[in-house]
């Protein structure tokens, strides 16, 4: 009926809750997504869920992404009005909770469903009026296609006439004049097939008919102080209204759905606004990324930083600059703790953010769209001792192969290093070559010289080589620079730093 999509350019309403992909947990854990989601949610479980689902369901249609970017820009320009709209959906929820409305259908009697349904429609009516007023006042402040359509749909569909008619029917449904129903005995001799029969005003004859006919009739009159009995009786009266209740319940569920969709869609933009305000405080830059079609392999960024790291440290963090490159293989080598994992995370998060229509944590960011983001990170510890570490890595890889499709993106972090270097490299090379052949974009952080050197030597797929920068004095800049793979990693530096003293046989190590 009324479609108010703020997430998709086409009008067809989409189901608001999509399923998370099977690898969602691993992806979130590897990318540190939780920090980002918490920043968007600010303690609100619902906002967390919205952010999670929206970020996890990558959009691969450029027009959808631009549509959302425009709406988000509108939201950033008019945060107050967006929050006011969001409050309306919150009020609905609040009323629903406060009135104990609509808690459980399965065990509710028809009388409860009817009265709850009526009350929910009543609550809705007031909020629909409110929604209409806000729309009328603010429609001209917005420029995005999404929000302009949103307001005009409300003004058109929720007209004065419509809302008044709505009100009239709610009143009529309280059946103030008594109810006549027929019933039969079902299982357990409980009444079934309650059918509402024509009430007094519709056919006046029946009341007199009863009074003067010889039909056997039994009457039960409640004691005036039997309040419980009176309540039950009024409920029973409504029990005759099962089918009527069904009709009202469906109408009420529709409105419930309407406000929930509103809350979900606005919830995404509220999450973005929350994040925006936090980043503004620490003066971290953001920009709307430039998405390119799936097959135009490109990667470039300026000042791309790990947003989760920035949020944790609550300050600006170092970003990376990568000049435009059109390879689908990027190999990253270099010393430990030189910012390689951080870079991988920032790439993964930037894609999730870009493809949900958000801004990205960078001065500029441009990449082709991907059909899915996958991570294959070195696990902290062997979670199941029954399984060899290497086998466990292969299994995770095999699961990824089952899930990934053409034009996916995969981030490897020191994968397949749990066997010896020669074997690990050979396995990795075969995997990488096959993935590239399937148009999958590969970022690979590795210590395995043989692996990096293979692609450097053969120049297959014209890979881009990045290296964690290490100054001659051993200091790290946490930046990646373009550069060929080197034979040594620098684990010894970390050892020194941790032990804070020189090794006895320093010479041997150098």
């Amino acid at each position: 009926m009324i479609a108010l999509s703020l997430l998709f350019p086409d009008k067809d309403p989409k189901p608001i809750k999509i399923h998370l992909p099977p690898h969602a947990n691993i992806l979130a854990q590897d990318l540190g997504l939780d920090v980002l989601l918490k920043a968007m949610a600010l303690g609100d479980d619902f906002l967390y869920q919205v952010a999670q689902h929206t970020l996890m369901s990558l959009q691969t249609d450029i027009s959808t992404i631009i549509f959302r970017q425009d709406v988000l820009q509108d939201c950033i320009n008019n945060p107050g009005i967006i929050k006011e709209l969001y409050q309306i959906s919150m009020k609905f929820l609040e009323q629903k909770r406060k009135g104990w409305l609509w808690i459980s259908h399965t065990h509710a009697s028809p009388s409860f469903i009817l009265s709850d349904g009526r009350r929910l429609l009543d609550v809705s009516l007031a909020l629909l009026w409110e929604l209409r007023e806000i729309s009328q006042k603010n429609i001209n402040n917005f420029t995005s296609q999404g929000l302009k359509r949103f307001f005009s749909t409300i003004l058109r569909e929720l007209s004065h006439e419509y809302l008044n008619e709505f009100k009239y029917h709610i009143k009529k449904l309280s059946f103030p004049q008594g109810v006549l129903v027929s019933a039969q005995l079902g299982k357990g001799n409980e009444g079934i097939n309650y059918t509402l029969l024509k009430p007094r005003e519709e056919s006046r004859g029946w009341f007199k008919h009863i009074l003067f006919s010889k039909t056997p009739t039994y009457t039960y009159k409640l004691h005036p102080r039997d309040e419980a009995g009176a309540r039950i009786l009024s409920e029973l009266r409504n029990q005759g209204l099962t089918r009527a209740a069904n009709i009202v319940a469906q109408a009420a569920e529709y409105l419930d759905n309407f406000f929930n969709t509103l809350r979900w869609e606005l919830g995404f933009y509220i999450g973005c606004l929350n994040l925006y305000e936090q980043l503004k405080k620490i003066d971290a830059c953001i920009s709307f990324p430039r998405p390119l079609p799936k097959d135009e392999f490109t990667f470039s960024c300026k000042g791309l930083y790990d947003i989760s790291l920035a949020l944790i440290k609550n300050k600006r963090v170092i970003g990376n600059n990568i000049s435009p490159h059109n390879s689908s293989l990027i190999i990253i080598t270099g010393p430990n703790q030189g910012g390689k994992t951080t870079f991988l995370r920032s790439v993964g998060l930037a894609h999730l953010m870009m493809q949900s229509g958000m801004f990205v944590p960078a001065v500029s960011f441009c990449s082709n769209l991907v059909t899915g983001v996958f991570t294959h990170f070195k696990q902290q510890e062997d979670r199941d001792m029954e399984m060899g570490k290497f086998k466990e890595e292969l299994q995770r890889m095999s699961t990824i192969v089952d899930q990934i499709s053409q034009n996916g993106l995969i981030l490897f972090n020191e994968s397949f290093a749990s066997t010896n270097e020669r074997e690990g490299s050979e396995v990795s090379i075969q995997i990488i070559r096959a993935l590239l052949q399937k148009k999958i974009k590969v970022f690979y952080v590795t210590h395995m010289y043989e692996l990096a050197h293979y692609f450097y030597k053969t120049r297959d797929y014209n890979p881009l080589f990045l290296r964690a920068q290490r100054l001659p004095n051993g200091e790290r800049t946490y930046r990646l620079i373009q550069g060929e793979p080197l034979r040594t990693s620098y684990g010894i530096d970390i050892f020194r730093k941790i032990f804070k003293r020189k090794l006895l046989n320093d010479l041997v190590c150098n």
Partner: protein
Amino acid sequence: MLSGMESFNENKGSNKSTLGYNYISILYCANNGELKSITPPDFLQDLNIDQVMDVILKDKGEYNLEPVFWNTLQDRNCIYYRQEIFKDLENTYIMEHIKNFVHDMKLIRDYLEMVKHLDIDYNKKGWILEAILIYTSSILSLTKNLSTAIPKSRGLSNVLRYLIYYTQSPKFLSLKTEAEILKKELSQIKYCIIFEGGRFKVKPYEGEEDYTEELKKIFEKFRHVETKDYHKLVEKHIGMNHISGKILEFVAKLHPQTFARLDEFYINYKDFMDQNIQRFDRELQFYLGYLDYISNIKDKGLSFCYPRLTTKDKEIFVRGGFDLALAYAHSNDQVPIVLNDFSLKGPERMIIVTGPNQGGKTTFARMFGQLHYLASLGCPVPGREALLFLFDNIFTHFEKREEISNLRGKLEDDIYRIYNMLSSATPKSIFLLNEIFSSTTVQDAIFLSKEIIHRIINLDALGVFVTFLDELASISDKTISMVALIDPEDPTSRTFKIVRQAPNGLAYALSLARKHGLTYEQIMERIP
């Protein structure tokens, strides 16, 4: 009445009425249905049988089936008695009707449980009537369908004979007829209620018109495609309060004869459940649970078989065996399941398994134990063909490589545990020792392992010894060496085999990758 007296009378009554069908059991062939063990045996966890039981017994708490799993059978005849029943139940026709019966019995129990919480007399009696209607029609249909199918097992044939006897008994026949007549009368009653402020009236229905149809049109506009149909939901049982009880009382006054008949019916038949039927229902749960469990695995193309059992010689074998719990865990994915064979001839008693860490050695040892355990329950076992030994006990020691703070203390514990096992083991016992002593020095491990292996084979017990020590592979003519291996010649093979051969120390990375479908060619095939 005294409860002791009551149960005495009940027993006497059932003896008389069943004419020799005192005790029908499909779990125990002899009259020794009693169970020895009231606690789970120690090896269940190491064999991952606890995982299997968790799945099988989920939602079966009311049947109290755990003891059936805790008590392995020691008598071949009893094992074959159960195997026959399993085979009958693999007949889809029999299975379908057994499942219907079990479902109905559950529903009946649910009704009877609910009745306990109802306050209104005619409400209770109405639900008892419903339970009886399900009971009689379910038992009749089971009898009819079992007769058509002609079960081959001794167990189900006994049940069928009893069912035929029972359904022809006068008591059952009158129960059925009276229930049906009564239900028909009750469901033909139609009445009207008129609700007014502070009172209501009940009268017979006199052809008044439906109003809901008119109302429907008003809210047509709100209709939404995906909304639930509350009409169905709200028709569920909700119980009755004193007002609806009053209405029912008035309806009863409008139809006095029908309700008098309901009173009489209740007095005559309120304890309608037959004890043998109830036992049959409970015992079936064991079979259904297990078959249900393995059907997921069968769907993946894996075979189960009925093992023969040997009691004297120890020439055992299995073809195409696998780990039940592992196969279940992967029943819905693409992960291939390791199939393995083993066979012991002549004096051979113990399998020494060596090979790479990821080779499925633990799984093999576990499978060896599972096969024997499941066979002793009378269940079909994972494999194409099997001849297994009827053991008296299984002793397991599976190394748990957790953080060890006190190495010496742990070693001492391990040796003490194995000492205890050896003290209580007999030539009919089975040992499964998995990577024990892996946390001590190699010299110590070799020394200790040899000592223990020799003691087990001197006892003439059966066993599997999993180790990373190649030196142990050929220390006696009573041991055989099996190696976790893959066949590098055959790239399509994606399963590890544990094969009988001398240990070798090859590296396996690429073969492992192939096994996981991760070579260049394989990935090219796999990604669409």
